[in-house]
């Protein structure tokens, strides 16, 4: 099923408006990128650690945010160490980690549905030339389509496994794309038949 990366909780950060959290994240990132002083970065790291504490999240959650980028971070650390100095390598790597953790904090404390509501609220105030209904339709369709295409992909893979082709990307992609295009016609007809257009 389709789940977001939200971690349930009842902290001030969980209850804050998504727009405020995004604005704060933007200010935070700009600040630690513009003021290139180690003291600023230190303060930034303390602030992130405090915020994780306020949100009731653990150090492990913060690590989860960094882990996918770990490989790239190690390479960047090595490159900086080789080109510049140890201090520079530590500074650049820590700054990236601070950014990753701060951004993940917003994701952890905000449900995808809250963001969606926020986007729809913004759209309702958008000028007339913005196709709001269509944007809303596309967003809600994807929620339904992802589990559906995943199920279709499993079917295709089963069928190709029987032929010994389950590692052949072409044999997996072509049937999946053609099925997807056929689905588009069926779904579009069904929507039009219900006069949502």
């Amino acid at each position, binding site marked *: 099923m389709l*789940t*977001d*990366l*939200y971690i349930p909780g009842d902290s001030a950060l969980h209850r804050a408006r998504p727009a405020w959290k995004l604005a704060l*994240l933007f200010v935070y*990132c700009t600040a630690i990128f513009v003021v290139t002083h180690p003291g600023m970065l230190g303060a930034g790291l303390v602030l992130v650690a405090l915020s994780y504490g306020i949100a009731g999240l653990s150090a492990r959650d913060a690590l989860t*945010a960094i882990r*996918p*980028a770990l490989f*790239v*971070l190690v*390479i*960047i650390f090595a*490159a*900086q160490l080789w*080109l510049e100095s140890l201090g*520079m390598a530590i500074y650049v790597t820590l700054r*990236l980690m601070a*950014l*990753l953790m*701060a*951004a*993940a904090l*917003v*994701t*952890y404390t*905000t449900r*995808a549905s809250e*963001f*969606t509501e926020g*986007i729809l609220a913004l759209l309702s105030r958008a000028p007339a030339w913005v196709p709001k209904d269509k944007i809303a*339709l*596309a*967003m809600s*369709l*994807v929620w339904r*389509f992802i589990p*559906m*295409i*995943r199920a279709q*992909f499993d079917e295709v893979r089963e069928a190709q496994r029987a032929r010994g082709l*389950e*590692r052949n*990307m*072409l044999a*997996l*992609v*072509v049937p999946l*794309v*053609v099925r*997807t*295009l*056929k689905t*588009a*016609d069926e*779904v*579009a007809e069904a*929507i*039009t038949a219900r006069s949502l*257009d």
Partner: protein
Amino acid sequence: MTTRDITLIALFTALTAVMAVFPPVTLPLLPVPITAQSLGVMLAGGVLGAKRGGLAILLLLVLVAIGLPLLSGGRGGLSVFFGPTAGFLLGWLLAAIAIGWMTEKFWDGLSFVSATLICVIGGIGVMYAVGIPGITLMAGVPISKAFMGSVTFIPGDIVKALIAAAVMVTVKKSYPIIGQAA
């Protein structure tokens, strides 16, 4: 934009998201596994065209930003847009638009060779032209070094360009989408 266009956009957003769970392919002698997700980017442009393909990738990026783990390895949320490789996500969007635009231009005589060229220019040329300066910006690594670090991914991307081209030509024959009113 008709309802069918909206449906196609949503379907290719979902298709690209599902490609994150494709079994990764490893080429001999290469340390990096090839994930199928950038194949979805090439297909969005090459099958739907510039406008619809670009919107499909944009929608995917919006859903990732609001916290859905739709990228390969279950990555998602705002942090992927603040990491060192964030430039490549913008590169996806521009690559889909570029591939779609070129495919529309050369639609009438589209062959496997021209489709492959289109996918290489858009999916590798445009993608790395945006992604590599992104590494430089986020991590302060010189462009040349960022390029060296990215070069190991290029053989895999060429394989994906070949697959995308084969799909584009097959779809053009059996189920053409480009050429109809967008």
